């Protein structure tokens, strides 16, 4: 049985990848490569390392497709989570850390992250933007700094001059609030029914 890759669901494509079906991986790349590369580039702010991370993400899927559990979320969420983790690893590598030491924490916290602009091009950009705007700043800023800045929550706490426990709680509750905001706007994150 050959898989019609263009018609196949993401989950079926992953099954085909498990059979070492290269066209299936190519189709997955066609569908999600742009989002993966875009996120890596945003975090790493440079093309060469972003391309390396993008390659690693898809080669990991090729090597270990069983790590994707279709019942725990969409393939895109899975790939983006892997992308984020790898990108953060790069950011936290020693060289990147040294480069970042030149910046003051306050500058980073207030000037470098404009999440509204960055999500503008999304297919659901308006709704996501609304959901973000509806978040109080004290919930929104820690998420931006941790997710797009690749910082640990302790670093974020230092940047925002807040207790670590407070930042930890605000990130969790901010994500929960954001999820509810998205659902209210008709965007159903994949795991909403779980």
């Amino acid at each position, binding site marked *: 049985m050959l898989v019609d890759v263009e018609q196949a669901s993401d989950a079926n494509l992953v099954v085909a990848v*498990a*059979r*070492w079906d290269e066209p299936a*991986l*190519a189709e997955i*790349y*066609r*569908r999600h*490569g*742009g*989002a993966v*590369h875009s*996120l890596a580039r945003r975090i790493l702010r440079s093309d060469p390392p972003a*391309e390396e991370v*993008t*390659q690693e993400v*898809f*080669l990991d899927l*090729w*090597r270990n*497709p*069983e790590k994707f559990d279709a019942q*725990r*979320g969409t393939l*895109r*969420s*899975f790939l*983006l*989570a892997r*992308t*984020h983790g790898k990108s953060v690893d790069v950011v936290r590598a020693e060289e990147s850390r040294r480069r970042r030491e030149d910046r003051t924490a306050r500058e980073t916290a207030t000037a470098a992250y404009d999440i509204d602009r960055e*999500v*503008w*091009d*999304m*297919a*659901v950009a308006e709704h*996501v933007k609304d959901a*973000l705007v509806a978040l109080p700043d004290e919930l929104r800023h820690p*998420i931006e700094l*941790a*997710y797009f800045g690749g910082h640990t*929550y302790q670093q*974020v706490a230092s940047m925002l001059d807040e207790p670590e*426990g407070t*930042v930890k*709680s605000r*990130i*969790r509750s*901010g*994500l*929960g609030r954001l*999820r509810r905001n*998205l659902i209210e706007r008709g*965007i159903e*994150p*994949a*795991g*909403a029914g*779980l």
Partner: protein
Amino acid sequence: MDHAEIEELLGVYALDALDPGAAAEVEAHLEGCVRCAVEVAQHHDVAGLLANSGGAAPAGVWTGIAEQLGGTSDQAWGRLAARLDPPGRDRGADSADATVTTTADAGTVGAGAPVVPLGAGIRRRRWVMAGSGLVAAAAAVLALVFGLQVHHLNGQVDALRAGPQLSAAERAALASPSTRRIPLASTASTGARSTPATVVLTAAGTGFLVNDSSGGLSPLPAGRTYQLWGVVGGRAISLGLLGPRPGIVPFSAAGTVPVTGFAVTDEVAGGVVRSANRPVAVGSVRV
């Protein structure tokens, strides 16, 4: 950390904002806590929406990926082969009388080998060829245990042919000379070697797992099940759940790709797509 402390970390964990030590603690907790695992998945979904700025996938990056696919296949095969056929095992196992003293290194079913449905495998030729060597080695393992504790099972298999649960076509298939009986050898490292179960496989692909009713696969506690796996082209695929107290369980192995070996694992109820557990019994289809 207790559950409540872990819960507080789920948001920062989902955003990769934890140090590696704390992240490892959270991951260990997630292995056994569905509630927390679901929450992390939900956070990932939300973060994925934030990250989704779209755009076309860069063609140049794909070129780099495609260039490495062949190599990764070989590497993955190497990992699987190492599990199924560990270094040090007698390479002379291709011969029928090769001396193999243990089945304890039979490997972990499915580890590194994603479960795929039968009948649709498109595999590179070199994989199939490499797999045949492993099957031969496994056959040699079976040669040692074959002949032990099989009479009772044979009686059960014969009874199966006359049983009311079969259609006339299935009875005819079982009576066919082409139908194979594949004894499954226990992998237990202690106690006497045993053949706790037999797979009966017709040429059409209909199969039956026949558990030895006088001391075969032991009953499992609540929440556990036996799971049957087939080795196809060197990879383990699930053939179905056998339940906690299997008797005679039918399964289908119909497809274009031959099953070259079988294994039974003890899994959580509901089964798994990829087992991390050592098989309790293994057998090879003689080639």
